[in-house]
Each structure stands twice: as structure tokens, then as C-alpha cells.
């Protein structure tokens, strides 16, 4: 199979586009994990909810040319609003508590959102069709490649740049980075860290919602889809480095390419390989490929 350069090129594109898709989804998790130090099990549920909200909105806008994109923005806003309510009502009372309690809180969200979806959208498999004009393929010279997946690559890079710019170049971004380093110090400077945590949680959830909406056309919406995606997000967060956006980008690419080329090389053991890689990264570089070791402790 290696003699066929076109196939290799397409598999590479498959890997890259899957990687970008995974990055859009996992970037929200990394942002929340990095700043709030909360391991958000509910991230997969937000992703799923984003897909279902998109399904409803697409139905509501009944496929006007911009209908899909309005639905994507709508899903992001909806998830952001939900996150805002959850944070204000419940999550912020847990920040001073042990990490375990925040983690179990997100696990309770998984259970509740799962039933919310079942009640709201029923239990049958739902499908969002591609936005108009993007259900075909584009000629890349070497071969044709689905236009929607190419667009996902672009959006993924944009999200990456957007987040990178926000975190590194804006004042708010600097506060977010500071909050990540040392919460007490910031509070002593009179900065309302609570509000930073709120907006990081809202932003991370909104991105997850957007990720769900963008992924909806290419996957089937069904109960239980949140469980699979959350494990992949954790793998990406670990390989890339807990809380490092660059790490999430790199981790997503690695997972995407592994999925694409694993098929060619070792289809049998791909499922074992992923977890083995997770173990090895944790043993060799616990803070991940691009993460920074926290305290200079031994």
C-alpha cells in the first residue's frame, strides 16, 4: 500500500482533518483543565449537547444558506449559557474544595445531561446533513478531498490561533495565565479570580458546544456518544500536556495521524497502542510533550 502515493496523501489528510476536529473539541477541555485545574468529565456531554442543539437549530432555520453556521454559533452560545448557569449555581462553590469533589461534580453532570438529551431529543439516532455546497469534494490537484473536512481543518487552525492570541496577547489572556499559575497571589492583588474562572469555564464549554455542532454533520447523534469522545480528550490533554493549548494541538494531531496510519500499519492493536502511548508519555514526561513541569520539585 505504500506504493500508492495518492492513498498516502489522502490518509495524511484524513489524519490532519481528524486531528483538527479533535483539537476543536479538546481545546475547551485543556483550557478549563489548565486554569481551573478541573478535570471536566462533562466535556463530552457538552460536545454531545452542542450537536443536538445544532440539530434543532438547523431544523428551525430550515436550511437557509447560512442556516448551518447560525446553528453552530447558536449551539456555542447555548452551551456557554448553560455553563454560565452551572458555574454560578454550583461549580464555584467547589473551587476551594478538593479536586475530587469538582471531578465528581462533573461526573454528576454527565449523568444529568445524558437524560436531558434523552428527554429533549428522544433516543433515536439523529442526523444533521452537511451545509449546502459542502457535501461534495474539492480537487486538491493530487486528489479530491471532502470539502467539509478541509473546512474543519481551517476552523481548527483558526480556533487554535484565536485561543493562542487570546491567551498570549490580550490583557484578559494574561490574567488567565496568571490565574493558572497562582490563584492566591492574584486574589491578593484584588483581581476577581472568580470571574476569570467563570469566563474560562463558559468559553471552554462554548467551544465544546461549537465542536459538537461542527462535528454533527459528519457523525450520528445518539445517546452515549459523549462517553467515547471524553476519553479521547483526556488522552490528547495528557499527551500534549495538561493545560497546554499547544500541547492539545500537538496531541490532537498525533491521535489523528495515529488513527489514519494505524489502519495501514497495525490495525489489530491500535486500540491497545493508544493507551500504551498514554502510559509512556506519563512515565517519561508526566507534564506532556509541550507542558511545563510545575514545581521544580525533585
Amino acid at each position, binding site marked *: 500500500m505504500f506504493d500508492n502515493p495518492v492513498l498516502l496523501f489522502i490518509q495524511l489528510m484524513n489524519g490532519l482533518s481528524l486531528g483538527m476536529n479533535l483539537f476543536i473539541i479538546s481545546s475547551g477541555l485543556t483550557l478549563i483543565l489548565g486554569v481551573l*485545574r478541573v478535570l471536566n468529565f462533562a466535556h463530552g456531554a457538552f460536545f454531545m449537547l452542542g450537536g443536538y442543539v445544532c440539530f434543532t437549530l438547523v431544523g428551525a432555520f430550515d436550511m437557509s444558506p447560512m442556516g448551518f453556521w447560525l446553528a453552530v454559533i447558536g449551539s456555542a452560545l447555548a452551551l456557554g449559557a448553560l455553563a454560565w448557569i452551572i458555574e454560578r449555581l454550583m461549580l464555584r462553590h467547589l473551587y476551594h474544595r478538593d479536586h475530587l*469533589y469538582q471531578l*465528581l461534580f462533573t461526573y454528576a*453532570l454527565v449523568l444529568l445531561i445524558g*437524560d436531558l438529551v434523552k428527554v429533549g431529543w428522544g433516543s433515536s439516532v439523529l442526523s444533521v446533513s452537511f451545509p449546502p455546497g459542502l457535501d461534495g469534494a474539492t480537487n486538491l490537484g493530487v486528489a479530491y478531498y471532502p470539502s467539509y473536512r478541509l473546512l474543519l481543518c481551517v476552523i481548527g487552525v483558526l480556533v487554535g490561533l484565536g485561543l493562542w492570541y487570546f491567551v498570549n496577547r490580550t490583557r484578559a489572556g494574561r490574567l488567565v495565565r496568571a490565574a493558572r499559575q497562582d490563584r492566591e497571589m492574584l486574589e491578593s492583588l484584588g483581581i476577581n479570580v472568580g470571574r476569570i474562572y467563570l469566563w474560562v469555564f463558559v468559553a471552554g464549554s462554548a467551544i465544546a458546544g461549537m465542536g459538537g455542532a461542527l462535528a454533527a454533520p459528519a457523525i450520528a447523534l445518539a445517546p452515549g456518544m459523549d462517553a467515547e469522545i471524553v476519553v479521547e480528550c483526556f488522552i490528547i490533554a495528557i499527551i500534549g500536556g*495538561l493545560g497546554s493549548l499547544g500541547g492539545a494541538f500537538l496531541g490532537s494531531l498525533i491521535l489523528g495521524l495515529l488513527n489514519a496510519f494505524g489502519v495501514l500499519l497495525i490495525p489489530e492493536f491500535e486500540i*491497545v497502542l493508544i493507551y*500504551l502511548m*498514554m502510559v509512556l508519555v506519563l*512515565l517519561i514526561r508526566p507534564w506532556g510533550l509541550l507542558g511545563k513541569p510545575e514545581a521544580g520539585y525533585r
Partner: protein
Amino acid sequence: MNKSITGTALLVLLLALVPLAGSRYLIYLVTEIQIFALFALSFNLLLGYGGLISFGHAAWFSIGAYASAILLTTLGWPFLLAFPAAVAVTALAAALIGYFCVKLTEIYFSMLTLAFGQLVWAIAFKWVSVTGGDTGFIGVAVPEFLDSPVRFFYFSLCVVLLCATVLWVIVRSAYGMTLVATRENRNRAEFIGVNVRRVQLVAFTLAGTFAGVAGALFTVFNHSVFVETAWWSTSAEVMIMSILGGVGSFVGPVIGAAVLIFLDRTVTEYTQYWPSVMGVILLAVLFFMPTGIAGFLNRRRGGTRR
């Protein structure tokens, strides 16, 4: 001190009478509670006493389960040899993997245990010839003397009580106190000459061993092993049992296991939305009863030392 001994004795006596109540449902229910109570007790050795949050405790439960299934059925060993051997295999695995896990701390430790737990699931899923893969290891050769619900109930009761007693002795031993010290202040523990990693490795191995016992019991109870028990949601379940019951007290996880299994069996009869019920209960515990049921009861009685 003797107040709690008589309390325990009373409870054990009552448990022993359960099979005489004539309801097989109750026998199955209490047997399952015993097994998961032991599983939760083993988990709490790590969390409650050692302060270590493991996301992969289901790995030992399922290794113990598969090991006993394979030894009993595929290799046809006699039960009295296969059962302890399965536990030994689990202990070895826990020590080996624990050696790596205790090198890390905090969230990295949790993530590594999650990774190893999922690795165990992936191997069990793929190694179809040995573990039965996604269909599971069906039809375990259970010895004659264990092949009736009542007889197995008593066997399981004895094993669980024995293990619980050993755990009870360990947590109150010199080692137990040292383990608590490593949780309270790792730095200071290091500075009284304690090799903290070795203390944690012993706790990790002990917890894995007792989880392996619970897994082996579960195999005999179900006459089969399912790959789903190795998935991370089982590790989350045992964590919720401990938190619900109260990690601060020895008996907390037992109560948590009893309440969770009982709800698991009964709530689904009335509603298909049992996940929401569990979610609400979990939220209630997190916000209003952070020390769990046992902690809540203890505090109401003046809060003795655990």
C-alpha cells in the same frame, strides 16, 4: 471501643441470618453488596487513608476476575488453588503497575492509573482467545460446594469479613498510621525517615490485592466475567460508593456500596431515568454531606476519631 465491636458483631449475626429469610432476591442483593463493599473498602485504603485518587481501580477487580475465571475453567485448577492464585496474580500486577504509578503525584498519578485501567480493558477486549473479548468469559466452572446461592453467600461473607478484618487491622497498625501521615503531609513524612513512595506502593498493592479478591468473588457469583467491568466507569462507580459512604470512616465505603447497589437495583424498576437520580444524589452528597453518610452520622454523634 467495645461499643463498635458489639455493633459489628450484631451486624454480622444479622447478615448471617439473611439466607434464612427465604428470599433468593435478598440473598443475591446482599451477596453483591458484600462483594462491592470489599471493592470499595480496598479503594478507600488508597483514597481515605492514603489520599491517593486512583481512576483505574477497576483494573484490579477485572484482573482478579479474569485470573480466577481462566485458572478455574481454562486451566481447570481446583478452586482452593485457583482462588488464592488469582489473588496472587492481581497482587503481582498491582505491585508492578503501582511501582510506576507512585512515581507520580496528584493529577498525574490519577491520570496514569486511568491509562493503565484502560490498557487492561483494551487487552481484555482484544485478547479474545483468552478473555472472550467483548462477549466476555462466559460459563466459569464453579465448584460444587459453591454452586448454590446460599452456600456462595456464606463463602463470600466469610471471605469479605476476613478481608475487612485484615484491612481493619492494617489501618490501625503502625503501617496504617504511617500511611495516614503520608496523606496528611508528604513532606514531613519524608522528614521522619519514611520512604513515602514505598509506603504508597504497599498501599497500592494491598488495595489491588483486596480488589482482586472482590473480582474473583464476582466471577464465581456471575459464573462469567464481562469486559465492561474493566471500563473506567467501574472505577468511577467505586469512587462514588466511597464518597457517598464517607471516605473519612472505615465503614463509610461499606455503607456507600450498600446504598448504591440497593438503589441501582430498585430505582431502575420505577424509572428509566436512573442516571438522573444518581446524579442528583451525587450532587446532594457533594454539596450537603461532603463527609458522606458515615461522616454525617458521626458528626451528629459528636464525631469520634475514625
